[in-house]
């Protein structure tokens, strides 16, 4: 096999795994059966020690790397970091990326059929907590015969899942890589999520979440939710650089336009993002995911003491933040680091200078890549790879 450098994993085919035993959830209810859609990249080694689990963020899914068709214009959402010679090097590691339950990209979620009613779950889908994702990911780990991940890696909400793994299944991972994340959301974060939810639920086509039964979609509401979200993923500087006050047509048509007129580039961008999202994402999933985010509190059941929480972990941690990320600010990452130091756990931390706001974790910023590569080098060494 040739060892490619900085390449793509190429064409990947999503797989589906069906679980027919009930999955008990944090809310007390159970999913009677569920599907998980996933992709894998790289080869699992003989002793199954080179597995890496990727946990996705709010609107993420299983398609993290490579392309589905030769003419795909856009690769997977984390193609910048996963592939031959990339930080998550598929020449060395076996990478599993799944669509979480509650999602809308093929894994069982609100758009799936509720076996008890024969209708889409819709708003009746059980509320989920981050730990439910961890438990369903644990079932995936067992399916592959893996007893310990080389690493669990996630950005944003994905980082929250990775940390929860370290507390719930401490023997099941050697490294936990937490990027642009936090131990709990701030009031400001929750406030933005609430605006997004209200945008969706006040859409006339929402029908109390039963829009599929009415053969419609709350597209306006979902688009608005995404537009608000998008502003919080970018930084002020990043927006200024990307759009400035550039006009779409080159000249201002003050007073002559109707409401639908788009004059500034940034308006056009946000509308495009909102519309694209509202055609591909499920509104109930968005509500469910933002609620799971809001309720996440790493240390709640550990006397609200993050150091006590992390005292249960057995893995090493790498924490990365980005200077202009105000959604998950560097201070939130530093709280994670401080708690880990107080718990006497091995931890490294880098704060990357970047203009891209929260979205920076998806972008191959040179220093980010250097730090990521340097840390991953020790994982390779643990596997006995000559470097």
């Amino acid at each position, binding site marked *: 096999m040739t060892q490619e450098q900085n390449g793509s994993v190429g064409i990947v085919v999503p797989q589906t795994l069906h679980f027919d035993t009930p999955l008990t959830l944090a809310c007390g209810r159970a999913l009677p059966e569920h599907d998980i859609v996933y992709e894998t990249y790289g080869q699992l080694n003989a002793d199954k020690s080179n597995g890496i689990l990727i946990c996705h963020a709010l609107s993420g899914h299983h398609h993290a790397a490579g392309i589905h068709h030769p003419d795909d214009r856009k690769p997977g959402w984390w193609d910048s970091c996963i592939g031959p010679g990339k930080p998550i090097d598929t020449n060395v590691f076996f990478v599993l990326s799944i669509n979480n339950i509650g999602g809308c990209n093929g894994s069982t979620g609100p758009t799936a059929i509720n076996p008890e009613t024969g209708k889409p779950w819709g708003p009746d889908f059980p509320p989920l907590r981050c730990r439910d994702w961890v438990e369903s990911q644990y079932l995936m780990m067992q399916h592959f015969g893996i007893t310990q991940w080389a690493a669990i890696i996630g950005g944003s909400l994905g980082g929250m899942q990775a940390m929860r793994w370290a507390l719930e299944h401490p023997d099941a991972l050697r490294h936990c890589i937490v990027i642009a994340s936090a131990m709990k959301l701030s009031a400001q974060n929750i406030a933005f999520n609430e605006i997004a939810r209200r945008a969706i639920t006040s859409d006339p086509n929402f029908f109390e979440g039963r829009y599929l039964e009415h053969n419609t979609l709350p597209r306006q509401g979902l688009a608005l939710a995404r537009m608000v979200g998008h502003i919080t993923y970018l930084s002020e500087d990043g927006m200024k650089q990307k759009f400035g006050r550039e006009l779409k047509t080159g000249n201002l048509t003050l007073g002559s336009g109707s409401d639908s007129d788009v004059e500034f580039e940034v308006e056009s961008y946000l509308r495009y993002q909102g519309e694209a999202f509202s055609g591909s994402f499920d509104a109930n999933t968005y509500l469910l995911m933002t609620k799971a985010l809001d309720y996440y509190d790493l240390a709640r059941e550990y006397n609200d003491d993050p150091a006590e929480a992390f005292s249960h972990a057995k893995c*090493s941690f*790498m924490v990365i933040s980005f200077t202009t990320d105000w959604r998950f600010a560097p201070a939130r990452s*530093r709280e994670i*680091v*401080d708690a880990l*130091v*107080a718990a*006497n756990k*091995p*931890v*490294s*931390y*880098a*704060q990357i200078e970047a203009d891209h706001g929260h979205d920076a974790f998806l972008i191959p910023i040179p*220093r980010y890549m*250097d*730090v990521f590569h*340097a*840390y991953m*080098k*020790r994982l390779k*060494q643990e596997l006995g790879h000559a470097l």
Partner: protein
Amino acid sequence: MRFDLTLIQPWINEGSRVLDLGCGDGTLLATLAKQKNVSGVGLEIDPENITQSLAQGVNVIEHDLNLGLGNFRDNSFDMVVMTLALQTLRYPHLVIDEMLRVGRECIVTFPNFGHWRSRWYLSQRGKMPVSKFLPYTWYDTPNIHFCTVKDFEALCADKQIRVLNSAVIGADNNQSPLADRFPNLLGVTAVYHISK
């Protein structure tokens, strides 16, 4: 390895927990981990050094020492080390207070501005000393708080800091009986092992 780093190793106990302030490329912690089973973490601000430390398998936290050590709990380390960084700090005395709060014992190494070459340079040329060891101009230098062996000992006396051990490294990058006798004149680098 830099001689001050070699010199301080016997003062660090097997299996202890070490915080290295300004850990550079991580050489000290990597060596201590290998030879003394020390579990350590470094604080560093330079991106290149942080990457080098990570690549050496050293745990490193991006941190500006001028912000203090408020993130670290009292007595949470057996040893807090700071090599050749004292002179770069905005408030060196406050950082030493913080080191003694966070660590049970501390090691500080710093360039001795009392060395005869510095004195000679200043008295003969009337200009701030520039050398191979300290190559910066006065207006563009990371070194903003030079001190001498005597200055440091006076600070320790003022703060009632115990000096458990001390040594100087001479111009030949080694220890010598003569430099031990006249540390403030012949020591290029001073090395102190201190506690509360």
